[in-house]
């Protein structure tokens, strides 16, 4: 596998300009000769499909939901960063670039991050023009809020529904292109394989979820905008349908998968309430501005009513351990501290996996009405889910899997190691390194979709020329047969266990050994357990009904099967990365005080995994990362 990042020449601030000039263009009249497939309709996919359609390409866009407006980008709450410097507080493109590289714990590619910071300003303009109702000041200008990991106020937002509004903006542009006939939308379709001919991506195989029909679609290029793989842990803040299948199928067809072990764990989620739990709900991080995190000092007090536990019997562990940042310590650090407290037997609530987030002090200082004004909707959401009133009793929170920084390896053009197959948004690996800063996911999805791919895809198409594979070609037939064979295999096992039961078990293994803290012994154990689970899955799975109509169990089984394979890959990556960085914490690599120890000498690279065939261990490649513009430094929050 050759990893050529294709980073353009020149100083960092000029690379993107230089690249746009040196990229080949497709003549407007020729664009209609090219067919492009876009898989996924979230911020990255929706923006890409709309923009490419507008440019004159023929686009086919696919999503598994019943309409493109439901992609999980919709659930992002906080906001979107942009280096507009509207607040005149010293922000700049270089500062956003710097914050993102540092926040990513020096494991991202500088050139990509700088481009992202440059494009961030165009995104806001574009979204405003589409009618996204961003928050405004009384004078009518755009409002900003501040967010973790930055000292400037650069986050644009639409109440607590920024992701929804940005997605609906992309969806409206996409709808316009659908009406114009430039984009054909295929809802309730799931991509089940990538068609590769002579090393180039030439199409996909889908299953129509509504009627079970399998079909091949051929094109000049395939864009995978299929999100992250957080659901490998079963319980995460992802939508229940989010899955790794499309990206994993591309990996099986030769696309390198980079840094799967980089997973982000969000510290403030509502804890698991029982075995029935199907997903976890995030509570905005902003709550930590006024809430104080604590657990009882003594184990025997864990079951007591928290209001009856006296002040001196409480351990405000974040304030104790990180006096200068206190309750606002970064995501990875506060997550790990919560785990430590619970591992010590001092967790609260169901199963002892929870810590208190207490607003008592803030309420007595500011009054209940101020707290209600600031966080009323969150308290209401908490009440709905837990049945508890957080004005009267501290909230219980616990960390949960939230975002995945790893993904398909892409070069500067967002192309994977399979020419013609591109990956955008959370599905690729490039911009966030080992840890993503808040309000940066939306920025990256839209940057890739609106402003990067329209240029870089032209360069690829102009060099290869139009030439869509015939639907009757043997390669297409072979892929189709392969997919049908896999479906038949799932329905013919006829065992006794449901796909969900395997998914749950996989999630437990992943969370236990590849969650917030990892070590060699645990990861090896996880790999063994996952392999056993997979063997059992292949013998004992039950999928009732047939594949020729809507069959939710069949859909689930296919996704779980890929998660079982992918989970092992994630653990292998975590095992080989013998350092702690960002979201990846290896217990063997920490300071005496329990802080992460990065190893820049040996691990300042992206690990890229190449599939070697069933039963073989995948091959690990490296893309060395260079830091010419931001100096490598240790993150400290003491």
């Amino acid at each position: 596998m050759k990893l050529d990042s294709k980073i353009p020449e020149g100083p960092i601030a000029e690379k993107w300009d230089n690249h746009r000039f040196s990229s080949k263009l497709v003549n407007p009249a020729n664009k209609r000769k090219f067919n492009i497939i876009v898989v996924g309709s979230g911020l990255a996919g929706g923006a890409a499909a709309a923009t490419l359609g507008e440019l004159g390409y023929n686009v086919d866009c696919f999503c598994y939901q019943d309409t493109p407006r439901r992609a999980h980008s919709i659930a992002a709450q906080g906001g979107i960063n942009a280096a507009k410097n509207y607040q005149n507080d010293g922000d700049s493109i270089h500062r956003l670039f710097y914050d993102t590289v540092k926040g990513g714990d020096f494991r991202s590619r500088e050139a990509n991050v700088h481009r992202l910071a440059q494009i961030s300003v165009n995104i806001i303009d574009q979204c405003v023009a589409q009618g996204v109702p961003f928050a405004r000041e009384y004078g009518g200008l755009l409002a900003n809020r501040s967010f973790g990991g930055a000292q400037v106020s650069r986050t644009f937002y639409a109440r607590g529904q920024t992701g929804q509004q940005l997605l609906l903006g992309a969806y409206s542009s996409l709808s316009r292109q659908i009406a114009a006939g430039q984009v054909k939308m295929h809802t309730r379709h799931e991509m089940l394989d990538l068609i590769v001919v002579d090393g180039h991506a030439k199409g996909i195989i889908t299953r129509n979820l509504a009627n079970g029909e399998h079909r091949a679609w051929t094109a000049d290029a395939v864009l995978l905008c299929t999100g992250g793989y957080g659901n490998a842990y079963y319980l995460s803040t992802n939508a229940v349908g989010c899955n790794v299948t499309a990206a994993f199928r591309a990996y099986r067809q030769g696309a390198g998968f980079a840094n799967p072990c980089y997973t982000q764990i969000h510290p403030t989620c509502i804890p698991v309430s029982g075995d029935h739990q199907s997903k976890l709900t995030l509570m905005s991080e902003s709550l930590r501005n006024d809430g104080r995190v604590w657990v009882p000092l003594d184990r025997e007090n864990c079951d007591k009513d928290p209001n009856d536990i006296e002040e001196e019997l409480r351990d405000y562990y974040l304030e104790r351990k990180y006096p200068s940042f206190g309750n606002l310590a970064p995501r990875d650090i506060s997550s790990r501290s919560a785990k430590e407290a619970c591992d010590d037997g001092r967790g609260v609530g169901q199963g002892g996996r929870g810590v208190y987030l207490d607003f008592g002090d803030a309420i007595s200082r500011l009054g209940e009405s101020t707290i209600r004004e600031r966080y009323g909707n969150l308290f209401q959401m908490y009440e709905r889910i837990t049945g508890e009133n957080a004005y009267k009793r501290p909230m219980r929170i616990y960390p949960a899997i939230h975002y995945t920084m790893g993904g398909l390896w892409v070069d500067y053009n967002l192309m994977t190691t399979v020419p013609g197959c591109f990956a955008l948004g959370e599905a690729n690996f490039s911009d966030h390194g080992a840890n993503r800063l808040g309000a940066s996911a939306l920025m990256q999805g839209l940057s890739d979709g609106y402003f990067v791919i329209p240029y870089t895809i032209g360069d690829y198409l102009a060099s290869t020329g139009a030439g869509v594979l015939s639907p009757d070609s043997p390669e297409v037939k072979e892929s189709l047969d392969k997919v049908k064979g896999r479906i038949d295999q799932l329905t013919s096992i006829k065992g006794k266990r449901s796909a969900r039961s395997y998914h749950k078990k996989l999630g437990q293994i992943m969370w236990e050994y590849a969650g917030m803290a990892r070590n060699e012994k645990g990861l090896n154990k996880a790999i063994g357990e996952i392999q056993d689970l997979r063997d059992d899955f292949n013998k004992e799975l039950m999928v009732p009904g047939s594949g020729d109509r809507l069959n939710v169990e069949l859909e689930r089984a296919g996704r779980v099967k890929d998660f079982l394979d992918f989970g092992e890959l994630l653990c292998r990556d975590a095992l080989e990365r013998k350092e702690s960085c960002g979201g990846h914490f290896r217990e063997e690599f920490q300071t005496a005080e329990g802080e992460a120890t990065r190893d820049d000498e040996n691990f300042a690279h992206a690990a890229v995994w190449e599939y070697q065939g069933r039963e073989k261990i995948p091959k690990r490649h490296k893309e060395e990362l260079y830091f010419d513009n931001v100096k490598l430094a240790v993150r400290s929050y003491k």
Partner: protein
Amino acid sequence: MNLTLKVWRQSGPKDSGQFETHLIEEVSEDSSFLEMMDQLNEQLLENGIEPIAFDHDCREGICGMCSLTINGFAHGPEDSTTTCQLHMRKFNDGDIITIEPFRARAFPVVRDLVVDRSSFDKIIQAGGFISARTGSAPDGNAIPIPKEDADKAMDAAACIGCGACVASCKNASAMLFTSAKAGHLNLLPQGQAEKDARVLNMVKTMDESGFGNCRNYGECSAACPKDISLDYIAKLNRDHAKAKIKNLFS
């Protein structure tokens, strides 16, 4: 808690469908309604029965995919709540719960509790957008927008496109949905250029898609999980009348 569920089963769009009764035991009051449905499906699977199909995705009340009519109410009896945010502690041990799909002529059943809401997409495609070519936008602060207008636009833009408004209306009218999108865009300066065409085309498509007429019953707004106000329907009616009159004289 133990419950009796009367659930709609329909094997496909052409099947006439019927209710099936299932008993479910030991439901945790902390589980969400959809988690209770998951539990029921696992129970059916144990007996080798195909699970009940229903739509769901984010399970945090924002994607708009879940769509159950529970005891006759779209998204169930709790106000301002989607099905996925409804929790079992709102029910009592021994309850009999009736579960149906969102019913409307414009939302044909695909299977069991899954309906086809693509007619909503068609309404948006007819005019629920501002034509802003990528890359052609002026600076975001070039047009100041009074906070009050931006807030009103945001209130309308909060619509999640679930279709509870249609399912609750005895005429199966889509006026609340259509007016929310038209209202959001028509309230903003960026949306003025296409305002007339927008309302005419969206309403025309809505009518052609098989939705009924609005009679101002207000059930739609009462059932709306995002509390979209009836005011937007009034605004759409005004904008539509103005556009028609302008057309007449142009």
